[in-house]
């Protein structure tokens, strides 16, 4: 049977009432869990796992898949409305989404985010359907040096994000990477930078850092400035959603979808680097690149599309190789295993109906997500009408519960409060916070890939450059860095020339 016939059969199954209902419930659960900073959708999936025991294997996968799709989007709702990324991948949504909210364009921001996410997810689901097999072969050739190179590309995008002050941004990034080394090292299992406190061995979790830096510091500002978040009349008029907006960001959505679909296939890369890299690239490509961070729609659309575009492609290695690239896909693997379904190349031969029903359901889920997203977003937007003090109190409680909920560890609450203060000081002094967070997220990944690469290739440093894929990615990273820094280099050069000329004149 051709892919189209198989997919048609899959759609028939996915449109069955029970399947449709499963998808809708899963989506709602996912969006809500994603939007609540406390409950990560990965936890929601883990909690849903026992409920899937009584389901048929396909239905179980639809349920978990729908939570996954909804959850990856849901994080952006809280990112846009209250500047708290509900999931790490929604971090870039804070950078341009929240400024839009501050201008009173919350509806517009949410509409763009939902549409971009849906299109990204849809693209990815189509990629999953048609290119699963060839992609899988390619992904398997990715070894640790390639993962390292991809992570370096993510780290380099920091420079693009804040190119006006590269020195300070780099310092912030390196601090973040250092913070990421606190705790038990992944290779030798020894504790680093714990200063004699056993609690520190748990390490500094990036979600906790993120919540502290963004949410807590924001709320302190809120109470100190008595700012009113309620949109004014004039702002509401600007906040209207128009179709022209969508047309404007079509390029950003397309680029984001492409980047996300490709990165999602790489095990371990996932939604967060996908979103960040898409943001960095969009900042370079866009006409308004230098205004990014002030509430530019393209800066919101690209990472939104990219992060949801990783959902479908992340299932490629899972279904074709049985390799879960993330915690979310690991739970799906566990669900399949508990049902006696073994993902791998044989699954496509033995049970194509199941595989293509999952594909069809992923396509369907991304379309239905628009409605689930609007519903939950509506509810969250009404929250904006409450007085700022009340809103602030609840944001802090949600943040603290969120920090606690990451690992159910009280130590994380203290870390969160600490980074809340750090974030507040950084904000007051104009020290960039985004590179620090990225360092905490990507640093530990980069270290792991780096160390394992060396162990695997005889401690040979050149392996990163001589392996074709890794070498290509690293050269791309270098080009990207120079491309982003070029305006600064030119400006610096000019100012130095001017200065020297001035001295000569005086």
């Amino acid at each position, binding site marked *: 049977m051709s892919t189209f016939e198989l997919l048609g059969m899959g759609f028939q199954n996915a449109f069955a009432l029970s399947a449709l209902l499963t998808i809708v419930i899963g989506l709602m659960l996912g969006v809500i869990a994603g939007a609540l900073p406390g409950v990560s959708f990965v936890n929601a999936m883990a909690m849903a796992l026992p409920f899937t025991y009584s389901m048929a294997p396909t239905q179980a996968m639809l349920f978990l898949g729908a939570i996954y799709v909804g959850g990856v989007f849901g994080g952006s709702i809280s990112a846009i409305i209250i500047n708290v990324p509900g999931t790490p991948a929604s971090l870039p949504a804070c950078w341009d989404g929240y400024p839009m909210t501050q201008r009173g364009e919350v509806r517009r921001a949410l509409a763009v985010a939902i549409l971009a996410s849906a299109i990204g997810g849809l693209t990815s689901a189509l990629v999953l359907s048609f290119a699963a097999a060839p992609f899988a072969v390619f992904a398997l050739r990715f070894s640790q040096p390639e993962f390292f190179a991809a992570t370096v590309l993510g780290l380099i995008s920091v420079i693009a994000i804040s190119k006006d002050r590269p020195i300070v941004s780099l310092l912030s990034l390196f601090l973040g990477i250092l913070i990421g080394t606190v705790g*038990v090292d992944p290779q030798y299992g020894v504790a680093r930078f714990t200063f004699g406190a056993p609690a520190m061995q748990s390490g500094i979790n990036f979600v906790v850092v993120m919540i502290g830096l963004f949410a807590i510091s924001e709320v302190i500002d809120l109470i100190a400035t008595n700012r009113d978040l309620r949109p004014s009349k004039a702002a509401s008029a600007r906040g209207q959603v128009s179709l022209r907006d969508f047309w404007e960001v079509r390029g950003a959505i397309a680029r984001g979808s492409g980047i996300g679909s490709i990165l999602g296939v790489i095990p371990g890369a996932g939604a967060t680097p996908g979103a960040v890299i898409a943001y960095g690239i969009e900042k370079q490509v866009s006409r308004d690149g230098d205004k990014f961070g002030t509430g530019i729609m393209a800066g919101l659309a690209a990472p939104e599309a990219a992060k949801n575009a990783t959902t479908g492609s992340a299932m490629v290695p899972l279904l074709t190789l049985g390799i879960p690239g993330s915690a979310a896909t690991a739970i799906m693997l566990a669900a399949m295993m508990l049902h006696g379904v073994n993902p791998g190349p044989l699954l496509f031969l033995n049970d194509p109906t199941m595989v293509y029903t999952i594909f069809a359901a992923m396509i369907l889920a991304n379309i239905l997500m628009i409605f689930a997203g609007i519903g939950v977003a509506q509810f969250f937007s009404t929250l904006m009408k409450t007085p700022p003090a009340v809103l602030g109190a609840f944001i802090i409680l949600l943040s603290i519960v969120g920090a606690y909920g990451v690992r159910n560890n009280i130590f994380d609450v203290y870390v969160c409060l600490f980074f809340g203060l750090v974030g507040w000081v950084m904000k007051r002094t104009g020290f960039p916070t985004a590179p620090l967070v990225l360092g905490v997220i990507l640093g530990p990944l980069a270290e792991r890939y780096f160390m394992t690469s060396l162990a695997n290739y005889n401690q040979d440093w050149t392996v990163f450059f001589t392996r074709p894929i890794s070498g290509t990615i690293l050269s791309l990273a270098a080009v990207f860095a120079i491309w982003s820094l070029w305006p600064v280099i030119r400006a610096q050069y000019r100012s130095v020339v001017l200065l020297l000329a001035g001295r000569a004149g005086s």
Partner: protein
Amino acid sequence: MTKFRRTLFGSVLIAGALAMTGAATAQDYPNRPIELIVTFGPGGGADVMGRQIAQILEADLGVSIPVTNVGGASGNAGLTRLRTSPADGYTMGTLISLTVASWASGIGDNTLDDFRVIGIVQSTPSFLFVASDSPFETAEQLLEHARANPGELTVATSGYGTQDDVALITMADQGVDMVNVPFSAPGERYAAPLGGHTDVIYEEPGDVGQFLESGEYRSLMIFAAERHPEFPDVPTAGELGLDMVYLNTFRTLAVPAATPDDVFARLEAAVIAATETDQWQAFCAQTYTCLEPLTGDAAQEEVNTFYHAIAAQLDD
């Protein structure tokens, strides 16, 4: 003034409540939810085991058993939480071999004396696997190649200082010198031999069941005193002339050390009953971890032996 009166009212309310709750005893244990701390994040082997047994135990104990994932510090963050919880039987935790091995490397502030092991519910020997397209058809070929070319073959493991590492070091001491390549992310480790990134993988069969059933992995040898009933054709390390200390990967349930005897006995009985259910038998068969459950003091002793075996290796 009104605010003061409200505060006063609140204090009275609290005092009254305290008087009412003071009298909970072990007789009606359990009468509220029992928290099961899984000491690793969602999606891993400990998590799947914890959620599985929690579901079975709920039916027996008659209360809900919510699973809490407390990851970090090789499982020690969760154990610290377990240790500092009231020893009233309302908090259980998973204690697994990886965490016990981490104590030997100086991680965590927990010792085995802080806990009472209810029972070892899963235990499995480890294997050396290769990908199906590997040139090594048998363990003899692999060992021969490793002896002839020391340091050439690479083995994907979970890290240095683990039982994986101990096994490889013991083999290297006997002339079979292979390079330990630590992959701390399980998914990447499983993929390493398939993508041709490492020659061999050291792993327990339960975690790579899908690759065994699909035929993508070939089992070469088992680190156990006897052959595994599910893998009758796979020779043991001893049969191949290697002298090894066999360290199984195990997962246990534990409570704080001060838990009263009657509460502990109730949990022990429930765990024994749980491992006899069809649901558990199906689960352990699938993960190749079925065993005669070892509970109470015998389980405690087994875990202790494991700890000293790892610590002895590190002290060399």
